């Protein structure tokens, strides 16, 4: 028993020391090399918009000539942009309409600006385009019947192919090649759009048989019907998948696709970021109005730098008061609880900075998140109070010290367990809502509270118990005689 306790104690000390190292401001990365195994992980605090400021992007509607921008379409644009931002996993971004035709986006601290802007401003017009018998190279910009009406006006003949009629039959024209042709003025080829992103039900990132990222999509019922008909009739031909007029993929139709499920792969292979970006854009549909970026810049925190610093100092004062109170009120166990509480803080901060390898990369902190942390700290202290009050009760009833300690932990456990379980359940509900309905504030709060409650179960129960048992083992008799040390 005693050896086991010592082992646990050693483990705890190591863990807390490791967390302390991560928490140190000068620690910037964990870099380990164990033979062939290389571990590299960046370690830094990610702070939200309210605490640190971030990137502000102003987007302006850029409608085609002759089209008007209505408030309704701007609101639709705002919602799509909000969804894309949330889909990027950015916490607590702000997306607001500004003036008549602008959208103001504020992204907290550490986002890759280029990638974020690319995701925001993409119109997201997806088309499935008939490519004929030769594949179109990826990255080629093409014209489609979606933009250019197919009926040629009688005064001009665009296509050199005889008998080009405005019928939707596939014309087997040679595709545009990049070799110089004898024609001096090559007429732009217009490709036929089979269907658009309108018929897409959902899109998400998947991986192909080699583990490379791809985009898996599902079509609506109507879309699936169109797709099934087309792929049955055009087996062996190529089908270009086009986003905002640029070919992103051009697979060959190997067999009819009737179940409305498909995937987009790239010859050169998508990077994970690319795949994710495309999936986000596809998932939330095309913008009703194209946008252009008119301004990007770095801005300060919404809560104000000085206000935050003051509040953090004040919070620290508050915590010191709590630590002192626990020490004076519960004496020796109070001191041990203080140790557990300080460790609790260190472990939490380390998780925010470092994440949990394999689970999540860290937490972006903002005021709601800090509130979740504060609440879970309150619960951590509460767990210790429950245990010690129970111990005192048992001692007052005349039990010997060791039995009282044992009973204190065991009896307090049920209430700690149930109170914390109900909190964890609440967190799960809030997180789910926060992720699905764009209430990302709620999400930030739920994440830190959940982590905090899990950590507090460990520090307030396991750790305090190990410490108390250990100290008691060393000085049991001494304590038996000096009960004032236990605050009884």
């Amino acid at each position: 028993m005693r050896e086991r306790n010592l082992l646990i104690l050693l483990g705890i000390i190591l863990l807390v020391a490791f967390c302390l190292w991560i928490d140190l401001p000068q620690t910037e990365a964990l870099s380990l090399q164990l033979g062939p195994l290389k571990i590299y992980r960046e370690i830094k605090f990610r702070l939200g918009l309210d605490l640190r400021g971030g990137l502000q992007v102003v987007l302006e509607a850029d409608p085609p000539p002759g089209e008007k921008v209505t408030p309704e379409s701007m609101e639709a644009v705002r919602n799509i942009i909000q969804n894309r931002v949330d889909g990027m996993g950015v916490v607590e971004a702000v997306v607001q309409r500004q003036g008549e035709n602008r959208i103001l986006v504020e992204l907290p601290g550490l986002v890759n600006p280029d990638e974020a802007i690319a995701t925001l401003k993409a119109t997201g017009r997806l088309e499935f385009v008939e490519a004929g018998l030769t594949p179109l190279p990826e990255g080629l910009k093409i014209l489609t019947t979606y933009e250019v009406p197919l009926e040629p006006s009688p005064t001009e003949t665009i296509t050199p192919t005889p008998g080009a009629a405005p019928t939707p039959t596939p014309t087997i024209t040679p595709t545009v090649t990049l070799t110089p042709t004898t024609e001096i003025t090559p007429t732009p080829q217009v490709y036929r759009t089979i269907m658009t992103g309108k018929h897409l039900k959902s899109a998400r990132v998947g991986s192909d048989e080699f583990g490379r990222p791809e985009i898996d999509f599902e079509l609506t019922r109507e879309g699936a019907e169109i797709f099934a008909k087309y792929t049955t009739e055009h087996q062996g031909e190529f089908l270009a998948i086009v986003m905002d007029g640029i070919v992103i993929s051009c697979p060959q139709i190997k067999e009819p696709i009737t179940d409305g499920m498909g995937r987009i792969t790239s010859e050169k292979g998508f990077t994970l970021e690319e795949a994710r970006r495309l999936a986000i854009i596809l998932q939330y549909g095309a913008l009703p109005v194209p946008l252009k970026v008119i301004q990007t810049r770095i801005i300060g925190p919404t809560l104000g730098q000085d206000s935050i610093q003051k509040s953090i100092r004040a919070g620290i004062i508050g915590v010191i008061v709590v630590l002192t109170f626990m020490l004076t009120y519960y004496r020796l166990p109070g001191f041990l609880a203080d140790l557990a509480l300080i460790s609790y803080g260190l472990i939490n901060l380390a998780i925010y900075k470092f994440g949990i390898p394999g689970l999540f990369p860290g937490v972006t902190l903002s005021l709601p998140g800090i509130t979740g942390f504060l609440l879970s700290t309150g619960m951590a202290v509460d767990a210790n109070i429950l245990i010690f009050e129970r111990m005192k009760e048992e001692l007052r009833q005349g039990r010997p010290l060791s039995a009282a300690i044992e009973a204190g932990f065991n009896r307090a456990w049920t209430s700690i367990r149930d109170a914390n379980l109900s909190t964890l359940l609440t967190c799960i509900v809030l997180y789910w809502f926060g992720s699905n309905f764009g209430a990302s504030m709620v999400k930030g709060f739920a994440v830190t509270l959940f982590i905090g409650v899990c950590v507090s179960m460990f520090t307030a129960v396991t750790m305090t118990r190990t410490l108390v048992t250990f100290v008691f083992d060393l000085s049991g008799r001494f304590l038996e005689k000096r009960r004032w040390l236990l605050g009884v």
Partner: protein
Amino acid sequence: MYNIIEKRYWFFGLSLLIIIPGLIAMAISLARFGAPWKLSIDFTGGTLMELRFEQKVSPERIYTIFTNLGYGDTTVQTTADEKTALIKCKTLDEEAKVKVQEELRKEFGPFEELRYESIGPAVGREVTRAATLAVIAASFIILSFIVFAFRKVPNALRYGVCAIIAMVHDVLVATGLFSIAGLLIGWEVDALFITALLTVIGFSVQDTIVVFDRIRENTPKRRGEPFEVIVTRSLLETFHRSLVTQLNAIFVLSAILLFGGATIKQFVTVLLVGLMSGTYSSIFNAVPLLVVWENREIQKFIARVFARSS
């Protein structure tokens, strides 16, 4: 101390004394502003002003200027060089705009107005709705969980329902007081208010479960004792812990309220009020309600009223 349960109706009365004015304030607000509280620009949208100064400016001081003129609902951000201020505030009329800009000139010297236009709400209706739905869903989850956790005690459902009633009580106290403050001193609910309420709810349930847990433990031990005696005993046994935990929360929040930044004062106040209410309601509402239910006092009361009228 010993007659919390005996004097239960006094304590219910005290709760109503706080909640009813709050509800009245919400009704007045609803009639006056179209919402139970004064809404901040997070919900309503407002004006975005962008000013370029010739020297570095402090966001906190600009914020103070706005607050002193009665526009507490303002966020100020600066760009990287700290000379350009982005100010989001209530829609100002021409007169107010001139006044505010005059004050700013006095404080920081001349500036150029780069932009002055309207902005939409940062928190859309759907977000507010999602948060509300989340709380309702969470309440049901908590209710089912308590019923499950107390399945060995007779009438487990009562415990769940009383915990939820206590939670609703705390939300009403916090929102009601905020509504009153809105009418009297112009407080406005912003996006942070949602977070504050979530915290209050979390704490409230935690607190109630701890007290109920004692009742659960004492019930099989003391078979044959009247329910009221068991409940009173359980309350006394957990009273210390409730007090100490509450004190600790008050320590931290008061420190932030006294020494913290101006921009989060309202937020911390809601937390403080809500947490105090959370402790109060678990001791003086949730537990006595169990007794009321056990004694079928409501049914008896209704029967008495009918007996009198017939």
